[in-house]
């Protein structure tokens, strides 16, 4: 196996693992308010999982991006990391990945700066993670080399459905609180 092959394998595996980490982070985050995971564990444990998965996502996404930048076959440059939709091929699919990456980084940084932000401001930024998730899912769907594999495809759609279900419960729980 050559270095290029190794980079390619690394990019694919970390991309998938970063998506899994993002799913767990979004689901655990939404379950904190709605109590959708009370059957699994108590809120303190879910909160710890939310924090862990968010932190674990960062190195996985970083390795995914660095491996693709170093791989001469994929021809992704530093500019593509900042400005979306500039890649000469699959610009929309790869651009969605760039948008997702930037949004999650903004959400993470805002969390670390939470004490210097207002609650409303922090919440508004934190809600960008939903957009980031949708962008990451679409990025995987349109650009993922292994997404067509039945097992991976089933898992990805299953996790997306899980996010939808927990999101719906989060929304209904929030509405119920408002009417009380």
């Amino acid at each position, binding site marked *: 196996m050559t270095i290029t092959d190794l980079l*390619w*394998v690394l990019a694919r595996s970390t991309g998938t693992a970063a998506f899994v980490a993002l799913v767990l982070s979004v689901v655990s985050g939404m379950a904190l308010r709605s109590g959708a995971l009370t*059957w699994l564990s*108590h809120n303190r*444990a879910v909160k710890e*999982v939310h924090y862990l998965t968010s932190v*674990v996502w960062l190195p996985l996404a970083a390795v995914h991006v660095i491996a693709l930048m170093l791989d001469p076959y994929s021809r992704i440059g530093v500019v593509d990391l900042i400005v979306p939709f500039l890649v000469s091929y699959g610009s929309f*699919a790869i651009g969605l990945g760039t948008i997702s990456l930037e949004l999650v980084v903004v959400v993470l940084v805002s969390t670390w700066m939470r004490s210097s932000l207002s609650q409303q401001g922090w919440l508004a930024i934190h809600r960008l993670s939903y957009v980031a998730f949708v962008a990451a899912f679409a990025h995987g769907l349109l650009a993922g*080399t292994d997404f067509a594999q039945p097992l991976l495809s089933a898992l990805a759609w299953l996790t997306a459905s899980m996010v939808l279900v927990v999101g719906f419960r989060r929304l209904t729980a929030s509405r119920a609180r408002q009417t009380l």
Partner: protein
Amino acid sequence: MERRTRTPLVSSVDALLAVAAGVIALSLGGMTLYAGGHLHNAGAPLQPAAVTAAPAAAAKTTTTTTTGRLQLSRGVTITTALPITRTHRS
């Protein structure tokens, strides 16, 4: 009336963290093994090489005719540079 409280499936914080870390590690390890065994996927949605090969082939329209010792070559160079024209102003 006594209210029944459900005990969660995983009561320990560390256990739930281990499960979450395990799921991520499993996806990372499993995908590494799979991608290592299947380096090339012809059905992948993005094929950078195919995109670069097509314009390169289209841009180079050179025909070569060989007639004995004489080799004739006709090449058309395609340029994207704008023509430089100067307009005389009186």
